[in-house]
């Protein structure tokens, strides 16, 4: 799958920094998501299930979602930079995280307990909002965080050595 995506030009290439871009975007995406969690009472419920303070829950959530943002930008590569569709890819990723997180991870981490009622609605919506925000932010952050074209053009991997057939290693070494 990865090689298929790369062949179709998804690989971010040597001058982009998808992980850093995703990390920052994912972290910022937690701001509206946290507000939503608070409004629906989900934050407090999560804290009770996990047995930690609300602040610690918030901090843990921010770290996890920042990491999730990094995974998102790395996985979607150049597609995540698309200002037309990035928001949609973000929502899709947020939905997938919700599906995996709320149905599998959270109940396991909480000993079989999960948010129900209104807090569970808040949980669902917060993942979508986080995905939307992250998907919207990545296209705006990635370019300032990328190296300049001129610098990228000096990299050895795009120089004349690229002409060599990398799948004939013995001959290349000789």
């Amino acid at each position, binding site marked *: 799958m990865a090689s298929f995506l790369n062949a179709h030009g998804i690989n971010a290439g040597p001058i982009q920094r998808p992980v850093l871009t995703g990390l920052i975007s994912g972290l910022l995406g937690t701001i509206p998501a946290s507000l939503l969690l608070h409004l629906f009472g989900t934050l407090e419920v999560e804290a009770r299930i996990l047995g930690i303070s609300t602040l610690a829950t918030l901090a843990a959530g921010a770290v996890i979602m920042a990491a999730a943002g990094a995974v998102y930008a790395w996985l979607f590569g150049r597609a995540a*930079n698309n200002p*037309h569709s990035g928001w949609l890819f973000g929502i899709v990723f947020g939905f997938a995280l919700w599906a995996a997180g709320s149905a599998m991870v959270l109940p396991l981490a909480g000993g079989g*307990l999960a948010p129900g009622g209104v807090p*569970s609605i808040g949980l669902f919506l917060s993942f979508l909002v986080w995905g939307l925000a992250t998907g919207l932010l990545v296209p705006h952050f990635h370019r300032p965080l990328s190296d300049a074209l001129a610098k990228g053009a*000096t990299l050895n991997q795009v120089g*004349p050595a690229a002409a060599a057939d990398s799948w004939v290693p013995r001959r290349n070494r000789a």
Partner: protein
Amino acid sequence: MMRIVNLPKAAVAGGAGALAWEAAIRPALLTGVPFYDIVRELGTLAFPDGPWIAWWLTGLAAHVLGGIGWALFYANFFWARLDIKPAFQGLIFAALPAVLAIFLVTPQLQLMHLADGIVELDWGILLEPLTATAIAGLLAGHMLFGLVMGALYVRPAGYPVENERRNPPRYAARRATSANGRRTQSAGFMFATGIECSYPTIENGSWRRDQMKGTWHYDRWQQDFALAREIGITHIRYGPPLHLVLGGPGQYDWSLVDEPMAELEEFGPEPIIDLCHFGLPSWLGNFQNPDIPGPMSEFAGAFAQRYPWVRFYTPINEMFVCARLSTLEGLWNEQMRDAGAYVTAVVNMASATVAMEEAILRHRPDAIFIHAESSEFFQPCCPDPKIEEIARLENERRFLPLDLLFAHPVSDFMRDHIRQHGVDDKVYDRFMARQVPRRSILGVDYYEWNERLIDRDGEPRVLGELFGWYVIAQQYWQRYQRTMMHTETNRMDAEDAPRWLWRQWHNAQLLIRDGVPLVGFTWYSLNDQIDWHIGMKEALGTVYPVGLVDMNRDPRQVGLAYKHLIDMYRDVPQYRECEALREMLR
């Protein structure tokens, strides 16, 4: 990115799918069939005790929104993956939301309806609503959704030909900018790229493919030119949209292209103007029309008069490819499969080219013509006379457009062939007798599918880079002995593109060392392209990742590699001052 998505179309398709579901399921629910009522489940989250109209409208809106979301997902990730009718693609896709609805959404909705803030998960609670009838209802609803959505979301790229006069695509307005550089007119080697601008019709002339719209060039043209300059591109192959500019006999909508041309004039890169790229305005019909030389030459003359600073022209791009795909493979324009139609198309295009050259020279006597053509080669698979005969015909046919253009006599075999297909000796003799303009360059394009094997069944199979551009280009050089330019190449595998670029460049260098006057090299194109993996025969909207920059205008590795190459060679004396180009400019 792997698809361009028509967002409004996807939204309508998804919304319609959700409404169709409701229209089919609601009567059954009202008559007491115990289907799963997803609209009620959604609506009562907001109005648990409200009147039915409140929860129904809210639930329906939420369901439609969900349908739109799934349709957008379908359009981005699933559309056109299967070679089956769109409605059935949608049907198969609907299995995904159906499975999620049964195993994830329905249980989660059940959780959301609970009064408690914290619940202990219990399969009894989660699967309570899922009776066999409920599951059947969910499956039926999703099937209907998939069928309707799939049937409606088609042809995300291009537009109906009938709309192109009423509501044509427009270029974005030119913004004031501190552009990077000024246009220079040197005699240096041409490090070129192009804006992919093909505009053939498909579906019997009813649907226009327009690569500049598909790749968002109309919106981002200024950024495209700036990126080309940043890479170090000195020349850009650029084709104003003929089908939009040439509105009728003598009717030209220059307002479409004045601003891009002004930007190129001021800042560069120096354009090589491509006046006809695989398509015609609908009022001219197709390449079987013997009357195209008149209006096309008037257009060329008017263009040269309006933009007198333009030096380089490609009157008609890749006549062989255009004729082949329009008349032998049945993909574009006239969509025929007839050897005679190929000959007719070639003669019409060559006649138009000659007339266009004459019209341009009247306004710009020192114009330089770069006749870009696909370099092809056909290898018989075996010593079977029938197979060898097919390969021979193909190898002769590839030269026919250039033979007519460069007044090179065809073989007796080809002479008989074109005579059989109605080319009068007088017409042929007229081509052979003409004085080819001195400033004519033979442009030779090369891709990994240009070398083909004629297999035992008589069908061509792609060989990849068997002999390479050097060998194939030599055949063209030997035949025409004209100043040459490498006018196109690219590679579909974006990861492998830098390797391909450098190897093409080494082929070009070897040709130069052999004494062939080569004036330029081209990576085609600046941007990614749309649907070229299927020759644009269907409007799928699949991104073909061959650009120096991607659809977001971020550099691809090959863009970095090309800049590396240009930076390395542009100041080498033999490239800084290209003797062959200097001679051409003289």
